[in-house]
């Protein structure tokens, strides 16, 4: 993404390139309420992400996780200013509006049914933004490499309808990774997959992250997923969202079943559940997929 890296022979610059900081300062988000007035969805969130790693974002349904993730990506929901107040700093510079440091992956992979797997992954290079930066020989190589990395090299001529749900999610992940983003924003990306496929995808994410570390912000409602993947776990309170808990997991990945059953992991799990349940029943139960 940085122009310098492609023009100079990068001396193991991968880590330098991956280094990115995001600071959220007093983020407040309000939406117009149906009966007039406003609803405060996010209420003064302060967070800092300073090194590559997987950051898990948990919280009760409807608390504002997706809202925060979209803010990080500079994507505006319709009919509202985001954030209502507060600042988002990326590498110290205030970010207002779309930027290309980040790429998003959603639960609902929007794979194009008319394009092959290869063309789906290569889709960003049909856009001016990426075509201008990355030469065709390079992006072709990158697509091939990324397809191999996600295990779809032998499926690249097929169409999405000929793939399983997990394979489709791999395509979506590959389309994000092929851009080598410094920030990868994932909104319940594995939420719709069956348990076994989800575990496979988690392992894949760990491998890919080891090979190409970047700053991942990963929204999930699955506590186990948070413990298996996270370098850091952030728990938000029910609407209006505040940071209820924020802790680090130092256990190296992949994390064994034994660790997951260890006292440390169980205590973390209880700690998360406590915060999630503290938000109280019946609140924030509205699900909105943006």
């Amino acid at each position, binding site marked *: 993404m940085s122009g310098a890296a492609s023009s100079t022979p990068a001396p193991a610059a991968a880590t330098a390139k991956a280094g990115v900081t995001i600071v959220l300062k007093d983020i407040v988000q309000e939406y117009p309420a149906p009966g007039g007035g406003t609803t405060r969805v996010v209420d003064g969130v302060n967070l800092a992400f300073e090194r590559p790693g997987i950051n898990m974002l948990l919280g009760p349904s409807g608390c504002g996780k997706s809202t925060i993730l979209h803010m990080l990506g500079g994507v505006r929901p319709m009919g509202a200013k985001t954030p209502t107040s507060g600042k988002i700093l990326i590498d110290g510079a205030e970010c207002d509006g779309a930027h290309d440091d980040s790429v998003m992956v959603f639960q609902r992979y929007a794979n194009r049914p008319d394009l092959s797997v290869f063309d789906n992954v290569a*889709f960003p290079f*049909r856009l001016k933004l990426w075509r201008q930066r990355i030469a065709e020989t390079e992006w072709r190589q990158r697509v091939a490499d990324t397809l191999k990395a996600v295990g779809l090299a032998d499926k690249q001529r097929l169409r999405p309808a000929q793939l399983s749900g997990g394979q489709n999610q791999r395509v979506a992940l590959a389309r994000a990774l092929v851009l080598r983003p410094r920030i990868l924003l994932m909104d319940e990306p594995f939420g719709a997959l069956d348990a076994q496929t989800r575990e496979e995808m988690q392992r894949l994410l760990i491998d890919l992250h080891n090979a190409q570390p970047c700053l991942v912000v990963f929204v999930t409602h699955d506590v186990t997923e948070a413990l298996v993947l996270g370098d850091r776990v952030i728990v938000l309170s029910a609407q209006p969202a505040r940071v209820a808990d924020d802790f680090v997991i130092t256990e190296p990945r992949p994390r064994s079943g034994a660790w997951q059953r260890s006292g440390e992991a169980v205590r973390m799990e209880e700690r998360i559940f406590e915060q999630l349940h503290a938000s109280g029943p019946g609140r924030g139960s509205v699900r909105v997929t943006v």
Partner: protein
Amino acid sequence: MAEFWNPYATPDARARRLLGVGAVVTVLVIWSLLAVSGLVSPNKLPAPWDVLLAFSYLAWHDGESMLLTATLWSIGRLAAAGVLVMAIGIPIGIAMGAAPKLNAALSPLVDPFRSAPVVALLPILVMWLGIGEEMKIAFLFLGAVVYLIPLVRDAIQAVPQSYWIGARDLGATPWECIQKSVVPMAMPRIADAVIVAFSVMWTYITVAEYVNARVGLGQLIQNARRFSAWDQVFAGIIVIIALALTTYQLMVHLKRKLYPWETQQ
């Protein structure tokens, strides 16, 4: 009979063909019986074999084929109007579907024409464009484009928003979202709209060739009617129906070839 009232129990291809051919044969038999029985005078309903004779007469006599010449002229006019309909109607429809403000501004101008008596516009077109080819092509164009534009707009609006969002999140400009994501996803429905437009043009071809046509299927029917040659009128109508059906089948086939993914969805 258990499967009779079941919209999902599609009979196999052979059964379907059998039922279709059976229906056509039944109509032919009833038609023949009416003609033989003398219940309906041949001046009102010519017998099927008379129509067939008329057809062969039109197809070949005195060393020329009136039918072929007429057909080629009609197809030519339809093709010329069709190219115009697509070249002008598709971009307008896409623009209206992609930009709600354009849609709000243009739909009051376009939508009412779907139910407007386009035939009544013919004298106006004659006044503006004279009685030559321009008028005929303009008439076909008008009749079809008012159907095509709203259908293309609807095709664009029917594309799930997730494709638009997906492109935007990857850094596409608003126009790229439309051009690279939304339009390709709308193509099968746009193709359906084009097929409808051609069907509409076939229904209007006789009207288009009503005024001062020296040659064409519409003129052929018109001429036959003047001489009360009802068998030739029937033959002409059947040829138009056959051509319209063939166009339809060819275009549906082409559409399936171009967008095979639509049915895999």
